[in-house]
């Protein structure tokens, strides 16, 4: 325990890291404020938008759908693309509302009929297409197949969830945009890499490896102390990240409106039934778990290398592995799809892990993405821990 406290002091509770953490907190707040304010163009616009949205909150309203559709199409004709409309709507609360309601009508349509851009034959969605697909599988006598199991579970969940309702959860949408994917990797995992990269390399740089490796606890207990310190550091930095972006997003507007709404109001394909607030808590817990596993992997790399810069560099390559693989073309992407699905860029995105339809065929059974990700990350974490233990046992100063 004493060794752990010293390792934590070396890694986190030192002047450099404490200053870095304070700077990060400020940065996270600014990012949260920036994105939420930019989304509405100001506090007044948010009030106007909320009034408009609250007036039609609830089930599908055909009259409003038609009005919003006309407004959206007119804006699109003027600005050319959907992105152009989105950009303009940040300055115009009426247009933002019309765009949101238009998007909602598309979601309702897709709920019944599947994607408007066409079905992915391997992943059917929509109530009617699912019913049709199940009928075809039944007719083919494939009721025991993996696809039949998967689609019937999906249909059951969709029917139980019911047709989506229009809700005002725009601030939460903005928050979840920061809490996943590229944003989480850049804002959270990059700083974590920078802070924990020296966990072992620092001992080499200072020459303390000589004293550590020749001491009684320098090959065994030190590993537990260092891994513990890395884990706590990951948790602290992640909590700073979540707190900063959360405060930045909501403080200017002084409201947490929407926290009690179902998560499907934000993540329309979510197969998990819980409130937005609960999903936010789940996101925090999940991301911290992923950060700890990533921390263990980086600790292993740090124990194998002598340079902090090289450790940080390899950490960044691991984080951006998904993007790099995708850039190599569809063939490579398809071949290495597992690396993409379970790379840190994807697994750090709780919205993708818990909020989508992705599932895996494991010996004929349907296994949801989050279960697979949990198991694989646990395996990676355990391998990394054993790796660090072995690495330290055979580590030398030569």
């Amino acid at each position, binding site marked *: 325990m004493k*060794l752990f406290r*010293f390792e934590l*002091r070396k890694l986190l509770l030192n002047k450099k890291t404490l200053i870095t953490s304070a700077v990060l907190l400020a940065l996270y707040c600014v990012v949260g404020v920036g994105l939420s304010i930019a989304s509405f163009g100001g506090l007044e616009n948010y009030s106007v938008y909320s009034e408009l949205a609250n007036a039609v909150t609830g089930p599908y309203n055909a009259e409003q759908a038609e009005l919003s559709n006309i407004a959206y199409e007119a804006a699109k004709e003027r600005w050319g693309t959907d992105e152009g409309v989105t950009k303009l709507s940040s300055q115009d609360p009426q247009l933002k509302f019309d765009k949101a309601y238009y998007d909602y009508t598309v979601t309702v349509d897709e709920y019944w009929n599947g994607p408007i851009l066409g079905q992915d034959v391997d992943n059917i969605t929509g109530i009617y297409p699912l019913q049709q697909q199940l009928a075809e599988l039944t007719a083919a006598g494939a009721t025991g197949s993996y696809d039949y199991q998967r689609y019937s579970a999906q249909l059951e969940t969709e029917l139980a969830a019911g047709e989506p309702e229009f809700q005002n959860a725009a601030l939460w949408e903005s928050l979840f945009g920061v809490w996943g994917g590229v944003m989480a990797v850049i804002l959270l995992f990059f700083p974590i890499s920078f802070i924990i990269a020296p966990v072992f390399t620092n001992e080499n740089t200072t020459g303390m490896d000589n004293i550590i490796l020749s*001491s009684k606890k320098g090959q065994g207990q030190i590993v537990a102390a260092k891994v513990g310190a890395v884990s706590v550091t990951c948790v602290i930095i992640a909590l700073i990240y979540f707190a900063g972006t959360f405060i930045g997003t909501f403080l200017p507007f002084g409201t947490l409106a929407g926290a009690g709404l179902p998560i499907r109001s934000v993540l329309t394909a979510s197969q998990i039934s819980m409130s937005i607030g609960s999903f936010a808590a789940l996101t925090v817990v999940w991301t911290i778990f992923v950060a700890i596993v990533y921390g263990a992997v980086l600790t292993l790399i740090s124990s194998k290398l002598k340079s902090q810069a090289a450790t940080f560099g390899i950490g960044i390559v691991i984080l951006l592995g998904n993007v790099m693989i995708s850039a190599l073309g569809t063939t490579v992407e398809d071949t290495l799809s597992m690396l993409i699905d379970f790379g840190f860029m994807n697994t750090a995105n709780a919205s993708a892990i818990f909020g989508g339809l992705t599932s895996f065929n494991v010996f004929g059974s349907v296994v949801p993405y989050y279960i697979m990700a949990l198991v694989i990350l646990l395996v990676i974490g355990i391998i990394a821990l054993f790796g660090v233990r072995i690495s330290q046992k055979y580590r030398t100063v*030569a």
Partner: protein
Amino acid sequence: MKISMNGIYKNFGKKEVLKDVSLTMGNGVYGLLGPNGAGKTTLIRILAGVVRPTKGQIIIDGKDREDNTELFRSKIGYLPQDVNFYNDFTGLEYLQYVASLKGLPDHEAARKIEELADKVSITADLSRRCVTYSGGMKRRLGIAQALLNDPELLILDEPTAGLDPSERIKFRNIVSAFSKDKTVLLSTHIVSDVDNIAREVVMIQDGQVSDMQTSKHFIAGVNGKVWYATMNADDLLEFQKHAVISNVVPMGNEMAVRVISDIKPHESAVCTEPNLEDVYLYIYNYKGGKVA
């Protein structure tokens, strides 16, 4: 404690840094003398267990060290040649950290830190951050950490680098007092560090070591090879180009020059009593490092 290093070899890539090194040590201070790059630090690191030999065996009290690494590590204290301490740690925190690495209970650690800080004269500076310490203070802090677990084997690599003369004397006294019933291996290229306190000395050059012998034995080996000559300053400038000189003392217009040579080096030269420094110069500068 009895330590035997048997047939130790160490290669870094194709470079053979240690070649068939065998040493045996009991209690007392042992000096490992050699110039920079001779292989002293590698040998010391192998003994400390932070570098693995390519070949060879280390036996501690009749047991193979490889089979008893944790037990062995609990019995050693090691001061490496270069250590930069953690910038944010105070001297006290640093010693407490090393004490926990060595598995000392809190009360025992506190007692030893107080005792050793007093011995190496850093008590008043323990609350200061290590980064503000002078080179000598860092060295004293390093000596204190090496002694924390009251080791049976103390391994010191260039321990007096950066110490002023009074600190060096104090350090020698600490090592002497400590070595009564312990083993100390002291690696250095400063002959005076081991001259007075080492029970036996081993010379190392190009990865090969001489037999472990007493200083007297080595000194006896250069009897008749150390000379005093007198000459003027101009002659000295010319003379030193082809002679190994261990000391020059101005005496009025003349210079008293201490010279190492197998033969009489100057018409004024008379034989004088050698010391360990002369042995070092004879082996490494005059004979070109033939240590056996």
